[in-house]
């Protein structure tokens, strides 16, 4: 790790003032479980590290009239325990899947949403795009993207909470660069597929930060669930995930639905195709299977990750079955 200057501001405005318009000059520190390993490997060598965890306005869960507001530095165990999150099994299941209690207490919501890709070329210092995608394409891409991978970015978006939160219609509050600049952005707009090494997987400017995430109170009435396909109980990223949120009428007919896949593309991957297949249907194993198939119909697997197509399809199917209160089958 390279030496750095350390700041621990107590207000959002103080934090903002410490940021820099130059990329990678300043790093935001939340739980640190992603940032510190990258700094130790000198993949990131910030001149200054700004710890956000002392900013009390950014911590905790609050219910307002239209929204449930989650502070960005709230640790995940606090989220899981909050009564306001009870109607959101899609989120709680993912936190529970994280397994280790220490990690749940250390990781924060904002850090989890902003964690860098786990792509092993990136983590070994070959750059986010790994020589414009060439290394991944011709190398070991067993864990890489099967969708949205036409450009040079082949990694998969790392966040596990983004798919359920996007499915539930979450928004993020982005602060900066100017002290009075703030806006609420649909969470999916935080992510993008970079076209060049200078671009990043997040649309945030280097001198912006996320202070809060909010969920519409209305979404609490939607049936929702997440299904993550993991290899073992260890800390490795899931192989493919899906989150769904569904509004059904009294007969169980799907009125509105959001299907978002994770770990299949450089961004959390909403599937309008699956949603299309579900609208006006009652969720049955057959309908869920069809929705899963629709979700991966356009997949473009790389040389070593054909199997992920099957996994993504199964994740969608099982998330839907869970949301509908049906048996998912499987292990």
């Amino acid at each position: 790790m390279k030496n750095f200057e350390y700041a621990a501001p107590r207000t959002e405005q103080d934090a903002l003032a410490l940021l820099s318009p130059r990329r990678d000059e300043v790093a935001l520190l939340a739980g640190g479980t992603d940032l510190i390993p990258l700094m130790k490997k000198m993949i990131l060598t910030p001149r200054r590290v700004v710890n956000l965890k002392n900013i009390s306005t950014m911590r905790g869960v609050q219910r307002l009239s239209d929204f449930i507001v989650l502070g960005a530095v709230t640790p995940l165990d606090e989220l899981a325990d909050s009564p306001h999150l009870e109607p959101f099994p899609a989120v709680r299941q993912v936190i529970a899947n994280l397994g280790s209690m220490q990690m749940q207490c250390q990781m924060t919501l904002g850090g989890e949403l902003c964690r860098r890709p786990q792509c092993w070329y990136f983590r070994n210092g070959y750059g986010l795009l790994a020589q414009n995608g060439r290394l991944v394409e011709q190398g070991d891409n067993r864990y890489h993207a099967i969708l949205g991978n036409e450009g040079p970015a082949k990694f998969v978006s790392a966040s596990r909470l983004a798919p359920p939160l996007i499915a539930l219609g979450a928004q993020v509050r982005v602060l900066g660069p100017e002290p009075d600049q703030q806006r609420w952005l649909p969470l999916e707009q935080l992510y993008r597929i970079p076209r060049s090494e200078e671009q990043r997987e997040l649309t945030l400017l280097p001198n912006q930060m996320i202070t809060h995430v909010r969920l519409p109170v209305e979404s609490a009435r939607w049936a929702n669930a997440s299904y993550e396909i993991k290899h073992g109980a260890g800390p490795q990223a899931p192989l493919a995930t899906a989150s769904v949120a569904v509004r059904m009428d009294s007969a169980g007919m799907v009125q509105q639905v959001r299907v978002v896949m994770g770990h299949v593309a450089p961004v959390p991957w909403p599937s309008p195709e699956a949603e299309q297949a579900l609208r006006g249907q009652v969720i049955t194993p057959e309908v869920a299977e069809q929705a899963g198939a629709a979700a991966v119909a356009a997949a473009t697997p790389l040389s070593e990750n054909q199997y992920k197509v099957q996994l993504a399809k199964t994740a969608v199917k099982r998330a839907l079955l869970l949301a509908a209160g049906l048996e998912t089958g499987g292990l």
Partner: protein
Amino acid sequence: MVKLDWPKHGEAALLGKRHSRIDGVAKASGAAKYAYDIVEENMVLARALGCPHAHCRIKSIDVSPALKVPGVVAAEALKKPGDEIQWQGDLVAVVAGETEGAVAEGLAAIKVQYEILDVFVKDDDLEAAQKAGRTRRAGQSTKLERDIPEDVEDEEEWEEKELQRLFDQCDVVVEGEYGIPVITHMCLEPHGSTCVWEGDKLIAHLSTQNVSGTPGQFAGPLGIPVTDVTVHCDFIGGGFGSKFAADVWGVAAARLAKKLGRPVQLMLDRDLELKNAGTRPSGFIKVKVGADRNGVVKVWDSHHWGTYGIGGGVVSQGVIPYVFDPPNRRRRATGIRVNAAPGRAWRAPNHPQGAVLSQCAYDDIARALGIDSMEVFIRNLPTVSNGKADVYREQIEIAAKLMDWKAKWHPHGKGPREGSVVTGLGMALHTWGGAAHNSTAELKIHPDGAVEIFLGSQDLGTGTRTVIALVVAETLGLYPDQVRVNIGWSTYPRSGPSGGSTTVGGVSESSRRAATAALNQLLQKVAPKLGVPAERLVARDGRIVDAQNPETSISWKQACSLLGMEPIVAKGEYRRGRTKTNLSSSQVAGVQMAEVAVDLETGVVKMKKFVAVQDMGLIINRKTAESQVLGGVIMGIAYALFEERILDPQTGAFLNAELSDYSLPRLGDVGEIVVHLYEPPEEYERGVVGLGEPPVISPGAAISNAVCNATGVRVPRLPLTPKRVLDALARAQKG
């Protein structure tokens, strides 16, 4: 005179019972100090710089910029211009400094120019390796029932025809490809040491399996007499065969410490640990097996390849086919040189690979014939090469009962399906030597009754310290906590390196011998006092007792007070092959059975139950013996389902050289494990046999066979990840 022999079966006070480790509390509470925990006053930290390229030549190297970093106190190149580097992470330089941060910045400041050379890492691809000129023939051997006729000119051609003839006579012929990739040792405590000089004498606190054997490895390169080096290791955070040497980084630490006149701690970082400090060689095989309609194998023909890293080499021919030795066989082997660090011994060298490469093929015979796999294993027992057919037969019977095999069995791929989940059974069997290594012990009985023993041995976490205490306490009629066990210093009497399951035999031999000799000296003193000939005296329950008249006795303390001022000092020595013994022997069998569930939609394999039946001669500590088997099985589940070194095919970079990327199971992944220690009286009579290696051998084959039984499809290569399972299912579906 008490006899050297172990107490008669059933008469031991301590041996064979369950004992907690004497160092258990120290370990659980954190009081136990590993090499990594040793912090000396005024110590500096050192770390190494790994080469980023897998194959290159050093054009220039300049460590001086590191010295300009505040806090850096020393920087040394380990390579010079012109040196060729053959794997990513090979150590190029070391830097010492006051803080971890300073050292890291120092390492980053070092300027090295490399000339990049061609990389080859595809150890599974024989054809590509041949094209790249990376192969080396590693022998061929053929055994046929028929002698070659004298008039034959081309013997190879005749053998080829004879094999063909034999295959033609078989009722079933199976052709298969199987494989097991390189894995790392993944010691929780990486390799390294804390080196301290006292004048011209070096003390190396080294994480090692080889306390007595490593001083010379420091002395040689440092150019000092071996008498000036002391190696110390009380606790080691994993070795598994990778920690026998001082290694370049150990010597580098000693050099830096000398130069600076300050203690230096140099431990490898996780990625350098995985890149340099130990891997298990891979094995891949193409095999053709022919059997009769009962599944009895008549002929075997195979070619296997794989890598030991840059040195070439391949899994030994001797383990192909494994345990079973059919009447006719031809085996060939080819080593592949890849740009990776040389392999090191990994718990039961060659055997886990042998089991996977051979016994998956035997299971595929069962699949082809539609008969119970267990039957096929039983029917082939007459051909086992270690003379243990009867032991295997009994062990299979026990394992089958514990697994409820008969009730659960279904032919391959024909079991009930629940949703997308199928279950299956698989088995494998193994063998290992485990003979005692050379060991010397010195035991002292003090006039106040205190007992201590000294051995230049080490406790790998297997419970060696406790074994020594138990043997001495059993011999002297004391409790284990009355024996002070001193190991872990090279200044103690020489004992062998802990590898190949040789330690428990070795230290039991020397400890028993030393304790018996010391006791006999004590009995000589006690005899006149009690007025009983020494021959009639025995030590038990903390007393010296007249065996014929138990009323006549004296407490241990009183007995020892007869020594006056002089403690008894006795030596026990064991030399393999030279010392006549019935305290220890060698050769074990062992049978394991696995039950798995497979999700056909996700390819996820889950362990349901695992049964391990293991012989080990005389059991000294039942608790740690079981623990060894449990640990071996878990380590086996790890390489069967999770572990694999992944090298980038283009750059040769070790892509998953961090704990965050290197898959390992967690407790939730290992399922129910049932351990049965096989110990009819004949086993006790054999004396002590090592146990470290055997239980880790069979899991790969047993689990692969179970997955095949569940799905009806062979997943040819370990680990059985969702990708491999789904790919195999998809291939099978395509036909």
